[in-house]
């Protein structure tokens, strides 16, 4: 300041200028930062007062793997097993003011929840406890109406079986964590939980629900009528090896598998072995004929019981005379069958044949419940004789059906499956017997139905061949056999002019009634069930009724035999020599 009061312009230091400029830049930066924060605050508080919330369930992140199990369907796409999202109820005990009251109110609206147990659980937990897993929508609404703070919902996945018991043993069931425990659910676990992240393809089974329903319905009827302990029904497509039906009674509801008894969960068709009795004569006779050492025209003396050591073999339907091979088969002669097998090579030949037919090893199927056959330790003469007519060796019904499918078809077999096979997916067929032997077997099975022990299966509209079986039931808790308890069975093939389907019905301890004349034989108990099954599933499977021409071909063979032996007893026509080239 000068004496005149005028300011004196001092030169500004360059450092000061730079300093001021830097201050301004920093101030500007701070201003920008504060404006940005202010803008963000405005954005958050005014424009977006809250984060977007999506109703109904957790947000689904992109590319999240699909945790659901794939559906299981029948061969026509009908649903057998699927998943549903169900609410589960949980509680945060720290937020519940009065645990006793809350537990009482919750137990009052939730089925299967006990108030005392719930109180104990809520007191034991700190911040989380399940109130009820897998509740219903109605229960969820009821809990919401209670308005108890600290009670919430989580969506959980539940496996459901809309068809209930219909295919319970084949489909199986899962545990509470959706891990397969039985049936296809267990065997195909990797396939069911693997696959693409979105849209898993369903597992397509070979079952046909329409056939399954018919078989189960008819078996249930027989189950009630004959007061059986159990029953098995199998329908196999012998062209492809696909199982169209697999029923085991008693069965269970897979939706409530944990409540089912161990007995009802047992799959008798694949997981239990039985001595099947005379139906085994299909195998023994096929072996004898295929060996070339026994011909249809041959006869075997069945006048007296057969003695082997201290054992005596008798016939249930004794004719007390020499029987031809067709007679032995259609009248189910134990004596004749045993002698026939000895003539064809005995135990060694029979064992080798069973091996070719897959009867000596554990069956192969997409199920975990598979039982090994129970084989004799030594194939001595008495063993060979009893095995020939179905005693002394126990196999699963599935294994037996598989073998019959080869013998009554073209002599070849293809492994059975529970999964649908396209025509080009059918594995190579293995030859078991010659085609000509298979043709003879079909004729013998037809004779059994037309004139033998299986006449109850006539009148289905189809040419049917079959064999009856009635076996004493092995005592699982001791030695020998149960007194008065039998396994009655019938195996059938239809239509015989182009054999496609094999049907087996097995009844465990049937009791005869007035309709069966008090008899428990397979021909009187299991055979009528097979008749009903065939006459109902034939149209469903699109099988046209057998023509009179096809029937005439079988009858011609019979007439040829009749003309060769005129003047014999009524049943002697089957004993006649059969023209076989």
């Amino acid at each position, binding site marked *: 300041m000068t004496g005149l009061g005028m300011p004196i312009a001092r030169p500004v230091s360059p450092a000061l200028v730079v300093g001021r400029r830097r201050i301004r830049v920093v101030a500007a930066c701070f201003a*920008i930062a504060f404006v940005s924060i202010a803008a963000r605050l405005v954005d958050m508080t005014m424009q977006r007062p809250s984060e977007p919330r999506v109703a109904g369930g957790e947000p689904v992140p992109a590319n999240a793997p699909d945790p659901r199990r794939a559906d299981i369907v029948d061969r026509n796409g009908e*649903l057998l097993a699927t998943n549903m999202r169900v609410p589960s109820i949980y509680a945060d005990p720290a937020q519940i003011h009065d645990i006793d009251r809350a537990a009482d109110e919750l137990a009052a609206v939730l089925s299967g929840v006990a108030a005392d147990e719930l109180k104990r659980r809520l007191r034991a937990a700190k911040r989380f406890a399940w109130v009820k897993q897998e509740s219903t929508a109605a229960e969820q609404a009821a809990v919401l109406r209670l308005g108890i703070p600290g009670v919430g919902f989580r969506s959980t996945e539940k496996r*459901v079986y809309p068809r209930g018991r219909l295919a319970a043993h084949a489909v199986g069931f899962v545990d509470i964590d959706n891990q397969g425990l039985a049936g296809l659910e267990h065997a195909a676990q990797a396939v069911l939980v693997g696959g693409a992240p979105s849209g898993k393809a369903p597992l397509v089974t070979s079952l046909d629900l329409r056939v399954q329903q018919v078989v189960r319905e008819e078996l249930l009827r027989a189950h009630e009528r004959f007061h059986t302990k159990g029953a098995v029904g199998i329908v196999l497509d012998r062209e492809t090896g696909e199982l169209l039906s697999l029923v085991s009674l008693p069965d269970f509801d897979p939706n409530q598998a944990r409540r089912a008894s161990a007995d009802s969960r047992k799959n008798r068709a694949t997981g239990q072995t039985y001595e099947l009795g005379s139906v085994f004569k299909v195998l023994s006779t096929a072996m004898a004929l295929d060996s070339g050492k026994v011909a249809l025209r041959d006869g075997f003396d069945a006048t007296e019981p057969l003695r082997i050591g201290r054992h005596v073999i008798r016939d249930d339907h004794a004719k007390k005379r020499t029987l031809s091979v067709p007679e032995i088969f259609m009248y189910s002669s134990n004596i004749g069958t045993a002698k026939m097998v000895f003539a064809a090579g005995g135990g060694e030949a029979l064992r080798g044949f069973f091996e070719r037919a897959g009867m000596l090893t554990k069956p192969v199927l997409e199920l975990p419940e598979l039982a090994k056959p129970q084989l004799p330790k030594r194939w001595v003469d008495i063993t060979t004789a009893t095995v020939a007519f179905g005693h002394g060796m126990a196999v699963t019904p599935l294994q037996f059906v598989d073998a019959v499918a080869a013998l009554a078809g073209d002599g070849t077999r293809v492994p059975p499956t529970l999964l649908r096979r396209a025509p080009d997916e059918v594995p190579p067929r293995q030859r078991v017997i010659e085609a000509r032997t298979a043709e003879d077997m079909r004729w013998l099975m037809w004779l059994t139905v037309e004139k033998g022990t299986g006449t109850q299966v006539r009148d289905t509209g189809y040419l049917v061949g079959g064999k009856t079986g009635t076996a004493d039931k092995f005592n699982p808790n001791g030695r020998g056999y149960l007194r008065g308890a039998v396994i009655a069975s019938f195996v059938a093939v239809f239509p015989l002019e182009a054999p496609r389907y094999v049907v087996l019905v097995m009844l465990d301890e049937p009791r005869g009634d007035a309709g069966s004349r008090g008899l428990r034989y397979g021909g009187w108990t299991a055979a009528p069930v097979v008749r009903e099954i065939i006459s109902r599933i034939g149209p469903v499977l699109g099988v046209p009724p057998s023509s009179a021409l096809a029937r005439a071909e079988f009858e011609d063979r019979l007439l040829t035999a009749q003309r060769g032996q005129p003047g014999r007893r009524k049943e002697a026509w089957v004993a006649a020599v059969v023209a076989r080239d």
Partner: protein
Amino acid sequence: MSPRHAAAGLVLVLVVAASVFHLKYVVLGLERELVALRTAIEDERWRLQQRRADLAYLTRPDRLAAQAAQLGLRPARAHDIVALEGIGSRAQLELANTPLEVPLPRGGPGVLRARPVAPVTGR
């Protein structure tokens, strides 16, 4: 750096920052929309699944069979199926419908009726 350049740079930075800020929020919004859409699709899939299960439950063969029985329907059997060649022609049916009077050996007239066709199918 001149003040002018500094100011221009600052404005540029501000514009870029604002653009990035805006872009980020647009992307966040789209992501939220995507998640919402995915969740909605998932919900619809579950609903569809539920409907399929309901349909399967309601069309249980035993339930349909019971309802069919109430309507007087019964399962088809092989005998109900007739081959086309097993059905008579109109001429055959007319002939069968026309009684033919013939003299009987013991005297007096008799009436003959022709069968339409011999069954080709069945037993």
